């Protein structure tokens, strides 16, 4: 479908859809930007089991400034639609969009792509052998489906499945919740003959973790935030808690009414942050308050979107002492001090 035919789709979501179609990733980044996170890591050459990195963690260093940008526009009551903001506002505000692109290409430290490295190290530590498709990894296209562009999603899914098959992939280990849900449930519904087994990082870890393998350097209280698609959509609620309990020195704590299947959305669900940027920020702050009421030292989650939202909420609430980390990172930190 051409852009101008999608009159009723919010422009921010349409922008992402175009990028998936034209560049095979949500931000329209050139192919050189991809797979940089994995430089120096050694993977198996047997692709039958492959790690699926997805877009979210890889490009978060770029997503964050973009979301900040649309939020600022929304708060100033300027049309917050992403493409409009990208076209007009940055110059006026002295923000250099091209610079953000360059930054994501050059940076490999201090952003959430480190979560992917942590996840790979943790899986290896537990004896999981897997390949990584690198620049050949297709986009799962999940945002197309959630935008309502389900025919475009089906076309993309078909293409992705053919690529998986041509590369000999039989099993995928996913890490981004929405990619994993798409590859597991939505592909099964839309791609005829789809037969790839899909598991999530946390299922692999929960299935293999043994007492004494992980010890956090220092005693901490951890509040776990369930990402919607991981918890309610895929039912992976007990596994992360089982894993947290298996890490020595970690005391898991839960908010009173809002944990597990009752977890409150971080405010980034369904593309909400690009459609209602300012309200999305308010929701993030609300969720952070619920999690902080537990007295936690660290907030832990497992989704690039949730990570971004919770960080943003903490920042606004000026809770500098509390950290948000991905469960993969928490595990990786606990591995070092063995």
């Amino acid at each position, binding site marked *: 479908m051409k852009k101008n035919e999608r009159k009723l789709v919010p422009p921010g979501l349409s922008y992402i859809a175009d990028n998936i179609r034209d560049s095979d990733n949500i931000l329209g980044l050139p192919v050189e930007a991809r797979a940089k996170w994995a430089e120096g890591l050694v993977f198996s050459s047997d692709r039958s089991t492959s790690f699926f990195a997805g877009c979210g963690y890889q490009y978060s260093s770029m997503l964050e400034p973009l979301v900040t940008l649309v939020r600022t526009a929304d708060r100033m009551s300027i049309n917050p639609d992403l493409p409009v903001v990208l076209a007009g506002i940055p110059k006026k505000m002295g923000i250099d969009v091209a610079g953000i692109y360059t930054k994501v290409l050059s940076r490999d430290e201090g952003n959430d792509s480190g979560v992917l490295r942590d996840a790979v190290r943790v899986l290896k530590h537990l004896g999981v052998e897997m390949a990584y498709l690198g620049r050949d990894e297709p986009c799962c296209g999940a945002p197309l489906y*959630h935008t309502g562009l389900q025919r475009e999603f089906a076309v993309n899914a078909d293409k992705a499945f053919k690529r998986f098959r041509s590369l000999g992939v039989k099993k995928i280990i996913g890490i981004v919740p929405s990619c994993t849900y798409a590859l597991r449930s939505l592909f099964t519904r839309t791609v005829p003959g789809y037969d790839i087994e899909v598991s999530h990082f946390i299922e692999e870890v929960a299935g293999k973790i043994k007492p004494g393998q992980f010890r956090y350097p220092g005693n901490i209280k951890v509040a776990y935030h369930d990402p919607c698609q991981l918890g309610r959509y895929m039912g992976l609620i007990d596994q992360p808690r089982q894993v947290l309990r298996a890490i020595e020195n970690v005391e898991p704590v839960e908010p009173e009414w809002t944990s597990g299947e009752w977890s409150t959305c971080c405010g980034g669900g369904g593309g909400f942050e690009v459609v209602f940027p300012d309200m999305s920020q308010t929701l993030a702050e609300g969720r952070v308050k619920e999690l902080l009421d537990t007295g936690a030292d660290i907030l832990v989650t497992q989704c690039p979107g949730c990570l971004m939202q919770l960080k943003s909420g903490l920042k606004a609430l000026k809770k500098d002492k509390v950290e948000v980390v991905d469960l993969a990172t928490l595990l990786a930190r606990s591995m070092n001090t063995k």
Partner: protein
Amino acid sequence: MSISKDYRKELKDAAGSGRIRLALSRAIKSYRVNTDNALKKFPHTLKMAEDVKLIKEASIPHMAELARKAGHSIEENKGKAYIAKTAGDALKIIGEIVGKNRLVVKAKSMTAEEIQLREHLEEAGNEVYETDLGEFIIQKLGQRPMHILSPAIHVPREDVARLFSQITGQKLEPDIDTLVATARELLREKFFKADVGISSANVVSADTGTLFLIENEGNIRLATGAPPVHIALVGMEKLVPTLEDAFKVSEVTWRYANYTVPSYVSMISGPSKTGDIEKVTTYGVHGPKEFHVIFLDDGRTNLAKDPVLRQALYCLRCGGCLYECPVFGLTAGYFGDKYFAGIGAVWAAEVTRNMEKATSMAYTCLTCGRCKVRCPMKIDVPEMILALRKAIAEP
């Protein structure tokens, strides 16, 4: 334009004010505590909700047939039954029964709100009083309801005191007991002077033609009992085959509306009658002489044909989902059309057919799915929203 400008502004203002958030956060907390306690005290409710889901799944495809059957039962009970194909038909039928220059007392009804019945009757020259306290406040403020069960959930007591002071011409303190007593005083004589009482129903059994009305205030008992004419406007999705089914639907509805048991449940099957003098049946003793029931279709039988969106018709209107919706917690009914939040988008698209609102609402839903966890019918709102977005994005 995908999200209408006015809607975006309304939402932004609502979310930015903080007052709604404060009022809602208190309501959410007490809803969760009360429902938790009610379900602990009556744990059979969970299994009963599963039974009710089966009842609804079996009833919805046969709504039209059930409406005819219920109509026969009501006529046998000496009431009058009507099937309104459209909102316009329903307004015409009710308008003709009421006439003009009449005093009308109304119980709260989302279905009446859906077809804007009060406005229609007022335009025809009738004086209409909302008798549910929240709805009365909303009517006097000239606003629209912000929650299906607690329409004035966003209005703090200070605002109510100011409003009631204006109406009575006395300076009233923002004391809740005083305010409630004032409403009682203002409405008391209206019930007995009214020519017509209008209500809806929570559920209707087709075999006996019985309307179940669940309430706590007592205004429904008065509005349906005191005036000589009772008119009930009922969405066709409220029909179930038997009296036994209707009892189950009622209990599950009030329990998920956070009550162990409500103060009142009225069961109404026909006009008031007596045979106490020579066994001659005579109508209109202490209750209404006339009993009219209008079953409203207006897109419902069509909606029932959609394999995904038909779930919207299983809704019991307990309001539980609204307390679990993070966006609703910031904006209350501004995330809404006639009905609210994610499920409200389906009603906007299929029943009131306000596509601009439906589109805006479809992209306001987080698709986080917590409403589904709360819902006694396990209505899959994210699945419906994605189906709706597909219809919008790929027509």
